[in-house]
C-alpha cells in the first residue's frame, strides 16, 4: 500500500467536479453537455428519422446508433488522428449497448435515432462521460426511455477501491491498477456497461461495483437537474417580469 493519498487530493469515493447541461445545440433534436473534471462531452441526438440504406431498417422497432469521437486536440499531448479508429468504434458500440436497454423505439419502426458524442477535451473516463451526456440528450429529444443511465469509472490502485480515476491514476506504475467503467440504470440498479482494464481480486471487484452504484446515484441527480433546468432557468431569462416563485409552479 503505497498509494495513500490521491494525486489531486480527492477523497477515495469522490468524483471530479461534474457539470451537466441540457439543450446546448439548437439544431439538434436533443443535446447535452457533460463535464467531469477535464473530460468534456457534447452529445447531439437527431431523430427519429428515416433510415438509409434500407437493409438496415428493422420493421419491428427503430434503431439506435451511437457515434463516439475524440477531437484531434482532445488528448493528453499527442494529436488524435481524426476519423474513426478501432478504439472509437468499440466505444461507439459499448455506448449503444449501454443505452439500448432503456431506449424504447417500438413506436418508430424502420426509423433511426442517431447519437453523436464529441469530446473536445479528455482525461480518462471519456466513455462514461459520453454515456451520461447521451442519456441526457436522448431524454431532451423526447425519446421514450424507461429509465435513466448514469455511468462512472471505478477501480483499485494498490488495493484501494476508488471512484472516477483520472489519467494520472490510470497510469499509476507502482502497484496493480484496475479501471472499471460501469453504467447503471437508476431504478432497477441493473448494469448495462461493465468493462475492465487491469487486475482486481473478487472481493475488491464487489466493493468497487457497490461503490459504482453509490456514485451513479449522485450522477443521476445531476442529470435530472440538468434536464429540469432547461425548462426553468432558460424560461426565467426569457420571461421577463415573472418572479422565481411563479416559475416553480409553472
Amino acid at each position: 500500500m503505497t498509494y495513500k493519498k490521491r494525486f489531486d487530493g480527492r477523497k477515495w469515493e469522490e468524483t471530479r467536479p461534474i457539470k451537466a447541461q441540457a439543450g446546448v445545440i439548437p439544431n439538434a433534436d436533443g443535446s447535452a453537455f457533460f463535464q467531469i473534471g477535464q473530460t468534456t462531452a457534447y452529445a447531439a441526438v437527431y431523430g427519429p428519422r428515416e433510415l438509409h440504406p434500407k437493409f438496415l431498417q428493422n420493421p419491428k422497432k427503430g434503431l439506435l446508433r451511437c457515434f463516439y469521437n475524440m477531437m484531434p486536440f482532445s488528448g493528453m499531448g499527442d494529436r488524435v488522428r481524426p476519423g474513426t479508429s478501432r478504439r472509437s468504434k468499440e466505444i461507439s458500440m459499448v455506448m449503444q449497448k449501454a443505452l439500448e436497454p432503456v431506449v424504447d423505439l417500438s413506436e418508430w419502426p424502420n426509423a433511426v435515432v442517431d447519437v453523436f458524442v464529441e469530446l473536445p477535451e479528455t482525461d480518462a473516463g471519456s466513455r462514461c462521460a459520453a454515456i451520461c451526456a447521451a442519456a441526457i440528450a436522448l431524454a431532451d429529444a423526447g425519446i421514450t426511455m424507461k429509465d435513466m443511465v448514469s455511468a462512472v469509472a471505478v477501480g483499485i490502485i494498490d488495493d484501494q477501491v476508488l471512484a472516477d480515476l483520472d489519467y494520472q491514476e490510470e497510469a499509476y506504475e507502482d502497484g496493480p491498477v484496475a479501471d472499471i467503467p460501469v453504467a447503471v440504470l437508476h431504478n432497477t440498479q441493473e448494469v448495462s456497461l461493465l468493462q475492465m482494464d487491469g487486475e482486481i481480486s473478487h472481493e475488491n471487484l464487489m466493493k468497487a461495483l457497490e461503490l459504482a452504484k453509490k456514485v451513479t446515484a449522485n450522477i443521476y441527480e445531476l442529470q435530472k437537474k440538468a434536464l429540469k433546468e432547461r425548462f426553468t432557468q432558460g424560461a426565467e431569462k426569457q420571461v421577463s417580469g415573472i418572479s422565481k416563485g411563479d416559475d416553480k409552479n409553472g
Partner: protein
Amino acid sequence: MSNVLVKEKEIVVPGEALAEGMDYLPGSGTYRLNDKIIAKKLGLVNISGRAIKLVPLSGRYLPKYGDKIIAQVTDITMNGWIVDINSAYSAFLSMRDASARFIRKGEDLTKIYDVGDYIRAKVIKVTSQNLVDLTMKEPGLNKLRSGRIIEINPHKVPRVIGKEGSMVSLIKTKTNCNIIVGQNGRVWINSENLDSELIAEKAIKKIEQEAHLEGLTERIEKFLDKIIGGKK
C-alpha cells in the same frame, strides 16, 4: 398506502418515480415498475383522478389519423406524390385523393403540385409500419402559395392554437396575418405586409419557448401590443 411523489404540472425526467402504491394508474408516457409509477419521457405531470399521465415537452411528430398537416412535395411517382411531413416517415398523396377536380389520365402531375410545393393535407391512413396516406379532397385543403413556413415543436401545437383557437386568432387579429397551423409542427403565415409576418413569426416562436409556463395568453397579448405599438 399510496401517495403521489410529484406535483401537478411538474417537469419530470425519464426514470423518475411519480407515485407509489397501487391506487394510481399509469397513463400515457408512464409505466408501472413493481409498486411505483415511473416516467418514460421528459414531460409535464398531469393527474386526473387516479390516472397519472405525462404531456411530452419534446419529440418528433408521429402521424395520426385525422390530423391536418402541412406537407412538402419531395417526389412525384406514376400515381401520386411523395411528401415530407416533418416526421421520421414520408407520406403518400394518391392521384385520386389529390384534388377535388378530376385528374385526367396522362396529365402532367408537376402542373398540379411540383417538387418543393407546400400543401395542406389530411391524414387518412396510418399503418402499423407508419406508412401514411393523405387526402386533399376536403374544403380548406390546398396548395399554399406565397407566405412563409416556420417549423415548431409539434408538441407545442395545441398551445399555439389555444383553447378553441383562441391563441391563433389573437395573433391573426393583432397582426392581420393569415395563419394555418399544421399538427406536424409546420406553421404557414401569410400577409401583404412583411413586417406583420415577422411579428407573427416572433410571437409563435415565443409561444413555443414558453408554452409550459402559466399565463401564456396574457404574456403574448402584451408582447404583441408592445411590438405593434412600438412600430406605429
